[in-house]
């Protein structure tokens, strides 16, 4: 009897230590990175102040924050076209990429012909084609829409194709034995199986879409955060460059976060 209570005591103690260590581990995972980030910012601020680094070379974090606040209107005005081009380019890439992925998965001929070319394009430095898009589509928004879509298309097409190919063999065999039509197998089995792959591709594609938009703005635009950065660089306004970069990073992280959230929601919905 006493040994049983002892064991119970021991177990509840073990559970308590387990809880404690889980708490410490999560605390550590949150506190350590935040503390490093804050320490780095303080070191940066201190170094700029102590070493008398000129503002043009490296403005202090407080000055960058001040510049974000002081130029809020300007940054906001340039944020709108950048965010719009990124989102439109990404949506175009999504539509085209999933369509090509489904076409490749549905037809063996299409797969053997087109897929090696799509894979080879992964290694081509697509950024180099940006000036061509300006020749084709002009200096306006269209060229940046097209370029952003072009840059983010490939990860989505590759992810969709490999997702559709990775369907569980036994499930496919079951469908065949139930005489399911290829169309129904595609819609109800293969596409749902491909969704986690698609999200992995979308996460790469959204960062590529932002990069495509910024490079497009570097070389053609009269507006957008990329233009603002290059313009500020030519006038040596380093604090404005960093302020624009902060806003751009925020855009990138928010868009990535949205896709991550959608991924979590769909995976919870489809896979219990």
């Amino acid at each position, binding site marked *: 009897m006493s040994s049983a209570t002892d064991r119970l005591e021991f177990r509840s103690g073990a559970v308590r230590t387990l809880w404690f260590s889980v708490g410490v581990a999560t605390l*550590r*995972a949150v506190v*350590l*990175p935040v*503390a*490093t*980030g804050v320490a780095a910012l303080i070191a940066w601020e201190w170094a700029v102040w102590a070493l008398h680094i000129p503002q*043009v*070379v490296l403005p202090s974090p407080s000055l960058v924050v001040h510049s974000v606040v002081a130029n809020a209107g300007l940054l906001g005005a340039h944020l709108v076209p950048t965010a719009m081009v990124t989102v439109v380019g990404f949506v175009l890439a999504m539509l085209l990429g999933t369509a090509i992925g489904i076409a490749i998965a549905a037809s063996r*001929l299409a797969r*053997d*012909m*087109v*897929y*090696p*070319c799509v894979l080879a394009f*992964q*290694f*081509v*430095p697509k*950024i*180099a*084609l*940006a*000036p*061509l898009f*300006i*020749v*084709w589509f002009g200096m306006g928004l269209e060229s940046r829409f097209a370029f952003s879509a072009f840059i983010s298309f490939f990860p989505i097409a590759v992810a969709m194709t490999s997702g559709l190919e990775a369907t569980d063999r036994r499930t496919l065999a079951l469908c065949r034995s139930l005489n399911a039509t290829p169309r129904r197998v595609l819609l109800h089995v293969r596409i749902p199986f491909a969704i986690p792959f698609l999200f992995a591709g979308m996460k790469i594609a959204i*960062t590529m879409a*932002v*990069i495509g938009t*910024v*490079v497009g703005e*570097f*070389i053609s635009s009269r507006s957008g*955060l*990329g233009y603002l*950065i*290059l313009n*500020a*660089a030519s006038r*040596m306004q*380093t604090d404005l*460059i*960093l302020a*624009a*970069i902060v806003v*751009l*990073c925020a855009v*990138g*992280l928010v868009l*990535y976060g949205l896709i991550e959230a959608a991924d979590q929601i769909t995976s919870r919905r489809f896979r219990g």
Partner: protein
Amino acid sequence: MMTDYVIRSQNAVRRGVLSITFVGLLVLAWEVAARRNTGAATAIPPPSEISDIIARHHGLLLQQAASTGLECAVGFFVAVVCGILLGALIAYSTSVSAALYPHMVVFQIIPKIALAPLFIVWLGVGTQSRLAFTVFSAFFPIAIGTLTGLRTTPANVIDLCRATVAPHWRVFMAVRFPFALPHIFSGLKVAVTMALIGEIVGEFITAQIGLGYIIKFAASNMETALVFAAVVLLCAIGFQHRRLGLRH
């Protein structure tokens, strides 16, 4: 077994023939369409004209390609050394990796391309700024690959090493590093592409030398055939670097 092998090699042949046929048909259609419609030929010159341009301007193009290829290769090499060293250093301390890993992941997500003009402010419009930017672009995938690889060494293998009282550096050289190699190489694959992208964007905005400069200059003069010629050479550089970097 034998039939399995035959079927597999037949499939490979089929795939090779079909994809080459597809590319061939594409190039042929492009050539015919560009020759028929002379108005569009400035926008998309026929492939024959592109190869013509490469043959005619090969001196200039090769000179610029050499500059781009060299800067990109040096940048990639420096990024490999720094990335593997930092990845290994971080992997050895759980506190340091817990503190730095989230920051490195965030750095993967943010558009680093936007920082290119800052490198010009710091290092001027010469080789230094392009090199530094190339290293910066290629560095993160390598460091993350190394870190992930070193962390995934199976715990029982490490336990065995500890039981045989192997010294730390031997465990690293003989066990942890080899186990990490697949992850490091997948980081290198991403990094090769990133290095070339960093180099080209650097050339776009410093506009002094290199294929990126040629592309931007030719596009502003509407010399699309020259743009395509430079892009062809860039693709060749990309494939070459990939092959050099990835032969185990």
